[in-house]
Every structure is written in C-alpha cells, then in structure tokens.
C-alpha cells in the first residue's frame, strides 16, 4: 500500500499532538490536525481522510458525539480512540458505536504508528473487497436481468410455436432456467400427430438456443405436411446450417396415424422408448438405432421408422437421458435396464417418476442434467385426434387461368410445378395439389407426346429408352405454330377445379390406352388420371380433355 494516507488527529494537548503526528509522518502518513470537536467538523468536507484518531476529552466536549457523524460520512474509515481512562463500560459503548480500537496513554509512538498503519492497510483491503463485492452485485444483477429478458423472449418464441394436446403428458426438471430438452407436438394437415422429444448437447442457455432452429423447422415442416422422414432430413439440414458442429441434437420422433392405425417411431441417440399395453404392462422397447442429429451428414441419416399397429398399444413413455443417467438406488448404481424398470412401474405418473428419479441422483446436491419424461396416452389421443378432424380450408373466390404454350415452350419441365405452386398460393391442401400435379402432368405429357409429337403410345412397350430417343427426335421438329392450351378454373361453390388441356395436333384417344400388366413400364397414365379425377371427358370436336377434381 504505497499510497499516501491521510489521518485526522484530534488532540488538544500540543505535545501529544506533536509526538503522534511526528510518528505518523515518519511512516509517510499525512496528518490533519484538530484540537477541538468544532475543528474536526470543519474538516468533514475533506473526503480523503482515511482514518480518525480521536482523543476523548476535548475543551468543547467529548469526541463520542462525533462518532455517528463520522460513521455516516466515512463509513469505511476506521476510528481509533486515544484515552488514559479504563472505563470499560464507556469503552464498550464506543465499540458499539463503531470504534475499532483504543490507544492507551501514555503513548508509545512506534506502537501507535504501526497500529495506525495496520488499520490503514486493513481498511484498504476492506475497501477493495467492498468495491469488488459491489461490482459483483451489479454484474449479477445485470446478468439476472439479461437472463430474465432472454428467457422471456425464448419462452415466448417456444410457446408461440407449441400447442398442447390432451393425452401428451410431460414433466420436465430443468437444471437451470433454460432447458436443453424440448417436447413439442403438432398436427399435420393430413390429421397425423407428430411429436418430437429433443435433447441438445449440454444444458443451460447454450443448449437451449440450439433447440430454437429445431423447433421452428419442426413446426414449419409439420404445417407444410411433410412426412416424418422428410422432417427428419429438414431438421438435419437446418442443424448443419445453424448450429456449431460440436453440438448435437438427440431426438425421438413419433407419428400417430389414425388413418392407417399405426404409430411410427424414430430414435436418434435417446434412451429406449418404452411401449406399454392397455394394462400398462411393458411390451416392447425401441432402442436408438440412429445417431443424434448433427453427427452424420443428412444423406447418411436413415429415415427408417419402426412402425407398430396402434391397437395393441396403451401408452408410450420416452425421456431424455438425464432421467436415467448417474442414478443410484440403495447405494447401488442403477444400470439403464434397472432405470427402465423403475420408470415402467407407473408410466403415466410423469411428475412422480421424475421426482423419484431425481432423488436417486448420485450427487443430489450438484447440478443435474435436464430431465424430461413424456407419456402418450393412446386411448385419449385416439379420441382427441378423431374428434378433431382437421379443418380443411378451401380457397374463397372463383378464379380461372389460361396458359398457352407454343413450340419449344412446350418443353418447359417446370411448367406444371409452377402452376401447382400457383394453386398452393391460394391455400389448397398439399394432397389436393399433389393430385392436380399428377393429373395435369399426365394430360400435358399426353398432349405433347401423342397430340403434338405424334409418338405412338405402344412405342413405350418395346423399350422406354428407345421411346425417349424417338421423343427427342420428334422434339427437334417442333415449330412455333404447335400449341397446347392448359386452363384451370376453380369454382368455390362446387369446390371443384376444372382442368382442361387441348392441343393443336390431332389429339389422342383416351380410350385407346388399356390397363397394362403391373410389370409393364408404361400405360398407367390414364388409369391414374381416371382414379384421381372425379370426372374425365374427352371432347373430340374441340380436341380437349376436361378433368374435374373435387376438393
């Protein structure tokens, strides 16, 4: 402590004052002198005083009365009293008032100066500690506020992306405010329920934020009507685009499909999924056959789901590894099989099980991994899903489009898909758009191949490749007067879409194609169209095919 310290010395006796101040100055301490209480009060403007050395009895009173004021103005400055008396009651009162120590008269200068220096040093340390603590508190407060705000935003985002459904019971025990586990479910436009339980590497905020892109992608892709396998691939793509490569996302994807009466499960790096019958008896376990998302490139991920008939299943339990790892029961470390058996004891009591498993943590006082346990009640879910048929919105307002394509423009591969995207933009369901795609592709290809290019359908019989060769040869002779017209017309009252295709060629006979054996590589087009359309008519006079598809 090399800083020059300033000490106020209150002493009415001139010789004592001189001895003391000399001793202090020898230590390099600056001394402010006062001989009355009033002179001390006049020094109170000086905030650089680090210590008060006070004689008790002064001409204008006793220095006791200064102490409250000094404590208030200089809370960090030690107060030492110089006294010749031994009134222990008085001394006790002064200690109570905040005096740090007493220096007995007669004064021993060397002892006094060392004592003062020692108090000054200690006071410096105390001040540094005090400041560090203040700093710490303000950082803590800032961190707390920031975390609270981050959590508010995060929680809001997740909640706007999730909805709860009866029959999906979940309990979570997070190691901190932010949880590295996520359970989310969403209903696909086709009515299937898709559920995802994910566990991001690590825990806390770093884990939680890597969950966000997964949740957003999951919701967007379910809403788009993607199959679970395709959702899985989208999740993997999104993960590799957004999350650092040393962070992974273990997850379980489950699809409940009432139309097929099946339940499909994909387990990537998570504990076994437990399957129970209607009597809550464990009947099967689905282990992780895949790695967590983020480990393999998307193309190497197997999208193979394990599919089970729904009838035999009453409940399904699945959970993050925090629920079963590092557990100990009766001083015996629990292996996973033991943990599965414990969870299987009461599969539907998620809160109870999670509390019970937490109590078995090997080190209960330390931070535990996030734990999430979910139980699907298939009985309730079946009712929920069947009683809430998916609302199928249909486009309001009629519209009609007419497209004309000439010459080489007939060969635009993207035309049909772009036309379907136009339909999608009106809000038609994905499955309807898929039907329209297939029908229009068939009709347009037929018009181009048979109507315009005059390729005989039976050419395909010999060889698909030679059919292609013939087609390419015919394409070279295309001219700009050759045309096909494609028209789409939506009638909102009949909820039907009329698709008409005509060509400038000779047209083709839709009846000439007959259903071929299954092993033939051709000749299915019109039977598919017939099945997908509600009516299919060919008008020979106008050389136009009219297909009606009801929504």
């Amino acid at each position, binding site marked *: 402590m090399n800083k020059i310290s300033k000490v106020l010395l209150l002493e009415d006796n001139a010789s004592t004052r001189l001895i003391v101040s000399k001793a202090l100055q020898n230590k390099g301490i600056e001394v402010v002198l006062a001989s009355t209480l009033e002179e001390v009060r006049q020094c109170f403007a000086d905030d650089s005083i680090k210590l008060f050395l006070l004689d008790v009895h002064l001409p204008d009173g006793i220095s006791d009365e200064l102490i409250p004021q000094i404590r208030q103005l200089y809370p960090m400055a030690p107060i030492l009293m110089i006294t010749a008396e031994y009134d222990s009651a008085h001394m006790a009162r002064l200690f109570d008032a905040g005096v740090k120590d007493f220096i007995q008269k007669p004064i021993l200068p060397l002892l006094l100066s060392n004592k003062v220096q020692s108090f000054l040093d200690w006071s410096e340390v105390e001040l540094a500690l005090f400041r560090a603590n203040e700093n710490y508190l303000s950082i803590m407060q800032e961190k707390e506020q920031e975390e609270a705000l981050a959590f508010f935003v995060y929680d809001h985002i997740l909640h706007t992306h999730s909805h709860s459904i009866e029959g999906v019971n979940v309990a979570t025990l997070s190691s901190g405010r932010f949880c590295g586990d996520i359970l989310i479910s969403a209903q696909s436009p086709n009515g299937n329920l898709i559920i995802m339980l994910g566990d991001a590497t690590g825990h806390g905020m770093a884990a939680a934020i890597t969950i966000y892109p997964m949740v957003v992608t999951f919701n967007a892709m379910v809403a788009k009507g993607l199959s679970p396998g395709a959702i899985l*691939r989208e999740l993997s793509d999104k993960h590799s685009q957004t999350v650092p490569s040393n962070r992974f996302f273990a997850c379980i994807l489950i699809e409940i499909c009432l139309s097929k009466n099946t339940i499909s499960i994909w387990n990537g790096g998570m504990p076994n999924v437990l399957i129970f019958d209607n009597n809550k008896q464990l009947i099967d376990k689905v282990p992780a056959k895949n790695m967590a998302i983020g480990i393999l490139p998307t193309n190497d991920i197997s999208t193979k789901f394990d599919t089970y008939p729904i009838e035999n299943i009453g409940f399904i339990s699945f959970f993050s590894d925090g629920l079963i790892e590092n557990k100990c029961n009766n001083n015996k470390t629990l292996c996973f099989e033991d943990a599965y058996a414990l969870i299987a004891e009461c599969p539907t009591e998620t809160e109870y099980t999670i509390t019970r498993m937490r109590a078995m943590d090997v080190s209960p006082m330390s931070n535990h991994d996030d734990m999430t346990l979910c139980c699907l009640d298939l009985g309730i879910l079946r009712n929920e899903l069947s009683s809430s048929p998916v609302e199928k919105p249909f486009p309001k307002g009629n519209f009609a489009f007419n497209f004309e394509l000439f010459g080489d423009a007939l060969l635009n591969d993207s035309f049909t898909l772009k036309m379907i995207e136009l339909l999608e933009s009106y809000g038609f369901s994905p499955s309807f758009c898929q039907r329209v795609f*297939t029908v229009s592709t068939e009709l347009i290809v037929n018009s181009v191949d048979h109507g315009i290019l005059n390729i005989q359908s039976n050419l395909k019989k010999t060889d698909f490749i030679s059919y292609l060769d013939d087609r390419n040869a015919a394409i070279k002779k295309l001219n700009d007067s050759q045309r096909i017209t494609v028209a789409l017309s939506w009638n909102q009252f009949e909820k039907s879409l009329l698709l008409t295709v005509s060509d400038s060629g000779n047209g083709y006979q839709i009846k000439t194609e007959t259903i071929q054996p299954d092993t033939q*590589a051709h000749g*299915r087009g019109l039977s598919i169209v017939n099945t997908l359309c509600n009516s299919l008519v060919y008008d020979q006079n106008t050389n136009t095919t009219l297909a009606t598809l009801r929504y």
Partner: protein
Amino acid sequence: MSEFIVINMPERFDFSTHGWFTKAYEEALTKTKKIVLDFSRVAYVDSSALGMMVLLHRQISATSGQGTIRNVNGTAKDILDMANFEKLFSYE
C-alpha cells in the same frame, strides 16, 4: 459390396427426374443388389416415375436383388398402390 444403398428421392419424381434417377440407380447397382428408395420427400409423382421404377425393378430382378420403398405417403402412396407396386417392391 454394400448391404444396401438408399436413394433419396426428390420432392418431384416425374419425367424431369429421369436422367438423375437412372444414373443414381445404375451407379448404386454396381455396388449392391439391394436398393432402398426413400420417398420421405416425394410429393409429386406421375406415371413416368412408375415407368422408371419398373425399369429399375427389371434390373434388380436380373441380379436377384431387392428393391424397397421407404416412407411413401399421401398421393404418391395412392399412386404406387394403384399400380400394385407392392408386387415389385417391398415397403418399409
């Protein structure tokens, strides 16, 4: 030889995919006898896709291999069912 090779089918499996698909399975058949067509992403199918799959089936049969269709859904599934493709491919 690989046990099996998965071909990830695109969203749109129609005439425009012909070149890509033929190349993909011909390459795969040099390494394996078992091919899995992953239909997870397929939304749009037409009859030429069925034609291409029949050609694939013929090549697979010639080497006593096996063709499997994985994760087929929606209209694509309806169309494959309509064509009785369960006789040519196994489903999973």
